[in-house]
């Protein structure tokens, strides 16, 4: 057996390499990737110098095509060209049915998941897989620009995304082979980019109107802390709706009486988008649309456009008022309103938002780029390139989480706008003698009736010890992590027995389905599955090694006895040895062991850091006294 190499106590671990991380804005109409290079965050452009990637995927017998190239196919091959797939993420088949002609695709139900799948020339694809295609292109862009494999990505989601929509986004990243460092809320990402750029302090509002989603977040910025006070939104409201309203208006004006084909529908939507964009800087425009036997010509102006989109903008303003109220703020308390998302280019949107908040909205930063830029800044910190001592994000849970109680009512367990991570426990009991299992239905939303809330998942608790009815006390803990994702744990309190929890998401994939999609996707790319999985394990091992080595360097002498330290060093050495080999199982085994042997150390470190935080505060107080 080889001798174990132990590093000298207190010796600096190897200076760690700069990690490669990106921020990704996965938008309804456009997506972007950005990264921090030589100190500043920049959007990574494609070979033609274009920052934006249209979120469009075209399927055929050839490998899928993404972006501008796919957009060109949209008019001629609308059924195989998937546009605005973000609107389908985390949605059920019955939701999709309500979209009607907005989505011309042929939908079927993904067996057993409640998820819609789209029938294309390349076979059936799920929204998760379509999004994964977009992510793959962005990841490749990142790899090429940074010249190496990515260590991780921060992916942004609308703040008002519910649990199922968030989970679907994370699944898509996994299918694309990306390690998700964090799901970050879009307005929060914008606030980071804006706050760090302007060095602003005070309370700000971020008004984010994209292609298909609307968010408003109220944040307090102070000394590098980004504290979200409240958030609100509508995940089915955006610039797409402006386009559709224009298209519908033109259609009715044209008095066209034949059935609108998907091709014509796409053509009208493209024209509508063009009209909207031109009216952003022209008072009026002349329109001339010809498609097969369809013809319409006319002149439209800003006043006409404003009237058409006013209902949508007013809807956003109501949500803004609600968010202000939730934050216990008045418009006059705000230092600034930051405008984010392509749809805030519309002058009328700026005008009405300015009126509501009684201030000139801030449009200095490109509204298309700011979210990806903020995500890149956060990714750089999370991956460890930049110390996070000076930046702290405190985000919130956007929608209340509750459980179904008798009579179809929702009992709220975790309230909306609660700072995450958050954990709340609730006790339940059995109603029958000898009952050993129980079912819990988790819902999300503010309404009282379960039927008006969104069904998230059904949990089954098993392994409850048999007792007389009402004697068991099952404590169910709901936890929302920093990605805004929910997990559930259950424990019988009189016996201390942990019940097992099986999650059946209402709309979404189970773990093994995601793994299967990943395998299919890699097989498609003719990549070596085994090699890629091994590489991922090695990366995990390296990450853990550097994290524990660093912990030992900082606190090993203070918090560990010589024997405890030796145990950890031995485990690290074993991990180091297998990490360079090709035995994936051995790597997982040694990762587990190294984790276990350092668990107690981790807890001591956490307690010590809390003590340190309080001591630091006391010190500050003393300093203030001295100055005073």
């Amino acid at each position: 057996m080889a001798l174990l190499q132990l590093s000298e106590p207190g010796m600096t671990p190897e200076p760690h390499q700069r990690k490669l991380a990106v921020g990704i804005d996965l938008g309804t109409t456009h997506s972007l990737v950005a990264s921090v290079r030589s100190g500043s965050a920049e959007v990574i452009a494609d070979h033609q110098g274009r920052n934006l990637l249209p979120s469009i995927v075209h399927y055929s017998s050839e490998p899928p095509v993404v972006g501008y190239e796919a957009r060109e196919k949209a008019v001629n091959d609308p059924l195989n060209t998937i546009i605005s797939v973000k609107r389908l993420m985390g949605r059920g088949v019955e939701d999709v049915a309500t979209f009607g002609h907005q989505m011309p695709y042929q939908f079927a139900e993904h067996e057993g998941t409640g998820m819609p799948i789209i029938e294309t020339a390349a076979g059936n694809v799920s929204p998760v897989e379509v999004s994964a295609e977009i992510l793959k292109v962005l990841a490749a862009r990142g790899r090429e620009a940074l010249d190496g494999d990515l260590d991780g990505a921060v992916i942004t989601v609308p703040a008002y995304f519910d649990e199922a929509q968030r989970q679907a986004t994370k699944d898509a990243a996994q299918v694309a082979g990306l390690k998700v460092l964090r799901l970050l809320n879009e307005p929060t990402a914008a606030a980071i980019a804006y706050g760090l750029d302007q060095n602003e302090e005070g309370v700000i509002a971020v008004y984010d109107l994209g292609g298909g989603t609307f968010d408003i977040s109220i944040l307090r910025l102070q000394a590098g802390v980004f504290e979200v006070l409240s958030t609100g939104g509508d995940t089915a409201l955006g610039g797409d709706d402006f386009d559709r309203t224009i298209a519908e208006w033109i259609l009715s004006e044209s008095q066209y009486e034949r059935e609108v084909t998907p091709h014509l529908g796409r053509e009208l939507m493209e024209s509508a988008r063009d009209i909207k964009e031109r009216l952003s800087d022209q008072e009026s425009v002349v329109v001339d649309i010809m498609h097969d036997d369809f013809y319409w010509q006319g002149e439209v102006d800003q006043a006409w456009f404003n009237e058409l989109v006013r209902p949508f903008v007013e809807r956003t303003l109501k949500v803004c008022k609600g968010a202000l109220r939730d934050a216990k703020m008045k418009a006059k308390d705000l230092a600034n309103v930051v405008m984010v998302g392509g749809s805030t280019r519309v002058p009328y949107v700026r005008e009405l938002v300015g009126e509501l908040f009684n201030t000139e909205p801030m449009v200095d930063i490109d509204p298309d780029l700011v979210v990806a830029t903020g995500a890149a800044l956060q990714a750089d910190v999370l991956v460890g390139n930049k110390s996070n001592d000076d930046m702290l994000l405190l985000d919130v849970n956007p929608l209340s989480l509750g459980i179904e109680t008798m009579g179809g009512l929702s009992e709220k367990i975790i309230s909306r706008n609660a700072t995450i991570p958050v954990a709340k426990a609730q006790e339940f009991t059995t109603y029958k003698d000898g009952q050993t299992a129980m079912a819990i239905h988790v819902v999300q939303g503010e309404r009282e009736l379960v039927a008006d809330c969104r069904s998230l998942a059904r949990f089954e608790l098993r392994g409850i010890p048999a007792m007389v009815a009402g004697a068991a006390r099952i404590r169910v803990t709901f936890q929302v992590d920093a990605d805004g994702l929910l997990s559930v744990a259950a424990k019988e309190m009189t016996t201390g027995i942990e019940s097992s929890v099986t999650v059946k998401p209402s709309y979404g994939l189970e773990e093994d389905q995601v793994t299967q999609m990943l395998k299919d996707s890699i097989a498609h790319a003719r990549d070596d599955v085994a090699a890629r999985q091994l590489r991922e394990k090695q990366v995990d091992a390296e990450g853990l090694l550097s994290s524990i080595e660093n912990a030992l360097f900082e606190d090993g002498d203070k918090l560990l006895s010589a024997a405890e330290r030796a145990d950890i060093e031995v485990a690290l050495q074993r991990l180091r040895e297998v990490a360079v080999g090709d035995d994936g199982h051995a790597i997982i085994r040694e990762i587990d062991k190294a984790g276990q042997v350092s668990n107690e150390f981790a807890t001591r470190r956490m307690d010590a850091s809390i003590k340190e935080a309080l001591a630091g505060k006391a010190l500050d107080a003393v300093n203030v006294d001295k100055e005073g």
Partner: protein
Amino acid sequence: MSLTENYFQLFDLSEQYAVDENSLRTTYRELQRKTHPDKFVGASQHEQLLAVQYAATINDAYDVLTSPLKRAIYMLSLKGIELDAQGSASMDPAFLMEQMELREELENAEHANDPEAALEKVADHLDAELEAFQATFVSQFEKGCEAELAAAVDTVKKMQFLAKVRIDLEHLEHELLVD
């Protein structure tokens, strides 16, 4: 210092009802800076779970310590008095009368010419009452004998009543906003 200690100790405060919000916020941020999961992205799974657990506990503590009602309930629980186990409240008739008047005020406000302003007035009224009950709670709690603690429980129950009206009022405001 660890999570098994009570929320006041976690925030390095003495166990008294009056808290300084600014200093609470400073402590809260310092604690989050040390424990937030964003600091542990590359760490072992155990450490990541630990961070979520610590940060969640600190969030809950901050929520309890900054809320006048939750703080009062929490202080009673530290004395071994669980409010839920105390049976239904024995409200004095005068208080119940006032409650009915408040509810009536709320209904009238809803149909007033300027419902938003009218609701604001009811809210001010509610907040003033809540504040008065807080003072009562403190004096009862500080005396600490069994009879006074029982009275403190009643006071907190009244506060709960008012808080419920406050929530209904906010619902109304919200509806006015949306429609």
